[in-house]
C-alpha cells in the first residue's frame, strides 16, 4: 500500500498556559489518513481538534511524537497543504479576485496567469461576477466560498478544514457542504474536516475519528459506508445514517459529559 497522506504517530502537544501551568491538548495521538480520503474529526469542545490540524499544517510542532505528510516528516509548512479556517481568514483589503489569486502569486506564478486561474476558481465556487468586491461586501457564505477557492486553487493534496461552516446558518451550511463534496470529488485531495457536529461529520466523511475530552486521543474510528455521490440534505434520512450516528453518539456522549463537567468545575473554581 502506498504511504498514507497523513500520519501522526504517538503525538503529544502541550502548551504553556499564561498562569504558568502546562496544558496538554493532545496525548499520544496516532492516526493515518489515506490519499484521497475524506476524514472527519469530532470530539467535545477543547479536545484538541484544531491543534491536530495545526500540527499537520506545520503551524505548530508536536511536543512529542511524529507527524508526516506524504511520507515526509513535517518541518515547516509542507507542500500541497490547503487550510480553510474557522473564522474568516480572507484578506479584507484584497478584492475577491486578488484573494483567490494570492496563492498562485505567492508560489511564483505571473500576475496574469494567477488572475486567469483565479477567475476560473471563482466561477467554480459560484462567485462569478463578484471578482471586484471586497470581502465586507459579501455574505458569510460567500466569504467561505472565497476561502475555499483560495485554498483549492493551489491544488492541495491535503485540505484541512477547521469547522469551516460553523458560523453559517443551517440552509447555507447544507448548500456549502454539498458544494464541498462536489469540488472534492473532482480532486484527489485528502480532507481532514474538524467539526463538533456529528451529523455534518457523517454526512461528509468516509471515516470519522472520535477524540476524547482533552487531552485528546483517539477514542474510536468509524467507517461511514454510505454511497457517494451524497446529498447532504437527504442522506440524514437513510436508516444506515441513523445506525452510524447512534454508534458514534453512544461513545461521544460520555466524552461530552466529561468535558461539560470539567467546564462547570472550572467555572465554579
Amino acid at each position, binding site marked *: 500500500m502506498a504511504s498514507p497522506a497523513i500520519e501522526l504517530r504517538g503525538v503529544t502537544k502541550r502548551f504553556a498556559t499564561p498562569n504558568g501551568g502546562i496544558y496538554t491538548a493532545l496525548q499520544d495521538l496516532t492516526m493515518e489518513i489515506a490519499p484521497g480520503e475524506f476524514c472527519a474529526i469530532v470530539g467535545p469542545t477543547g479536545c484538541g481538534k484544531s491543534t491536530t490540524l495545526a500540527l499537520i*499544517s506545520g*503551524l505548530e510542532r508536536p511536543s512529542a511524537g511524529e507527524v508526516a505528510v506524504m511520507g515526509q516528516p513535517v518541518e515547516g*509548512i509542507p507542500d500541497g*497543504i*490547503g*487550510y480553510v*479556517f474557522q*473564522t*474568516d*481568514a*480572507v*484578506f*479584507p*483589503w*484584497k*478584492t475577491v479576485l486578488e484573494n483567490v489569486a*494570492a*496563492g498562485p502569486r*505567492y*508560489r511564483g506564478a505571473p500576475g496574469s496567469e494567477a488572475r486567469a486561474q483565479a477567475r476560473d476558481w471563482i466561477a467554480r465556487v459560484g462567485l462569478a461576477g463578484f471578482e471586484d*468586491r*471586497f*470581502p*465586507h*461586501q*459579501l*455574505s458569510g457564505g*460567500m466569504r467561505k466560498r472565497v476561502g475555499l477557492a*483560495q*485554498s483549492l486553487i*493551489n491544488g492541495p493534496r491535503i485540505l484541512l478544514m477547521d469547522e469551516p461552516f460553523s458560523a453559517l446558518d443551517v440552509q447555507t451550511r447544507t448548500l456549502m457542504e454539498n458544494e464541498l463534496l462536489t469540488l472534492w470529488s473532482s480532486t484527489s485531495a485528502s480532507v481532514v474536516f474538524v467539526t463538533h457536529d456529528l451529523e455534518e461529520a457523517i454526512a461528509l466523511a468516509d471515516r470519522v475519528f472520535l477524540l476524547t475530552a482533552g487531552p485528546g486521543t483517539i477514542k474510536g474510528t468509524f467507517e461511514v459506508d454510505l454511497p457517494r455521490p451524497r446529498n447532504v440534505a437527504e442522506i440524514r434520512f437513510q436508516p444506515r445514517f441513523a445506525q452510524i450516528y447512534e454508534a458514534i453518539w453512544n461513545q461521544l456522549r460520555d466524552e461530552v459529559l466529561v468535558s461539560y463537567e470539567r467546564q462547570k468545575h472550572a467555572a465554579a473554581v
Partner: protein
Amino acid sequence: MSVRSTLPRSSLSTQGGAPPFTSADVRRVDGAPLGPLGAKPESAGIDADLLARRSRTARRRRLTIYALRLAFAVLWIGSWELSTRMNWVDPFFVGQPSGVVTRLWTWITDGTALGPLWLQAAVTMEEAVLGFLIGSGLGIVFGILLGRVELLAEMLSPFIKAANAIPRVVLGSLFAIMFGLSVWGKAATAVVLVFFVVFFNAFQGVREVDRNLIANARILGADNRRLTTEIIIPSAMSWILASLHISFGLAIVGAVVGELFGATAGLGQLIYNAGHTFDVNGVFAGMFVLAVLALIAEGLISALENRLIKWRPSRVSGEIPI
C-alpha cells in the same frame, strides 16, 4: 513595550462635517438600492416614497447642523465683539474680532512686517510638511521594523519610552544651534514631535494583525517579504492613517515652536513679533491662518485615508430615523 497610540479612525464615532451618509450609500451587495425585504414591483411606489422621505430627513438634519454651527459662531464671536465694544473687557488684552479681521485684511493687501502673508504661510507650511513627511516616514519604518523584530523592540523599549517622556519641543533650541536659521531646524522640531505618534501607532498596528490572516498567508505560500508587504502593512494601515490626523497638527506645532527659537520668516515668527509688540489682534490673526491651513491639511489626509482603505466597510450606524 507600553504603547500610547490613537485608535484607528474607524473605531471613532462619526464626527461632524459631512452628513453621516445619504440614502444613496445604502446598497445591497448586488448594487441595487436597499429596499424593504420582499419588496414586490407594486410596492415600488412605497419604496420611492420611503427613500424620498429618508433623503428629506437627511437634508433637514444637515441644514439643522449647519444652522447650529452658524449660531454657535455668531454667539461666540458676537459676544466677544460686544464685550470689547462695551469696554467690559479691555480689547488691548483680549483682542477684538473686528480688529482681527482688519489686521488680516492689512496683511493680505499690504503684507506683513516680515513680507507678504502668503510667503509666511508658505515658509511655515514647508517646515511643517517636511517635518511631517520625514517624521511619519521614519515612524512608519521603525514602527513596522520593531513590530516585526521582537528582539529589537525589547532592546530599544526603555530608550524609546525615555525619549517619549521628555518634552521634545525643547529640542527646538538645540536644532536652532545645529541648523541655524534654515528651514531644517524647524522641520527637525516637527520630526521629533511627529515621529513618536506615528511610530507607536505603526508598532501597535503591526502587533494587532489578525493571527489567522498571517497563518492563512503562510499556508498559501507567502514568504516573509510578502507577509510584510501584503498582510502586515495593509493591516496596520488603518492605525497608521489614524495617527497621521494628529501628527500633522503636531508638525505645525513643531514648525511654529521652531520659529520661536529663531527665524526670519514664517507664521510662528509673525505671531511672535505680534506678541512682542502687544498686538493681540495680530496673534489671533496668525492663529486663524494656521487653523485654516491645518483644516485644509486635515481634509487632504482624510481624502488620502479614504483612498487607501477603500476596502473597509463604512462603520456609520445603520439607519436614519424616519
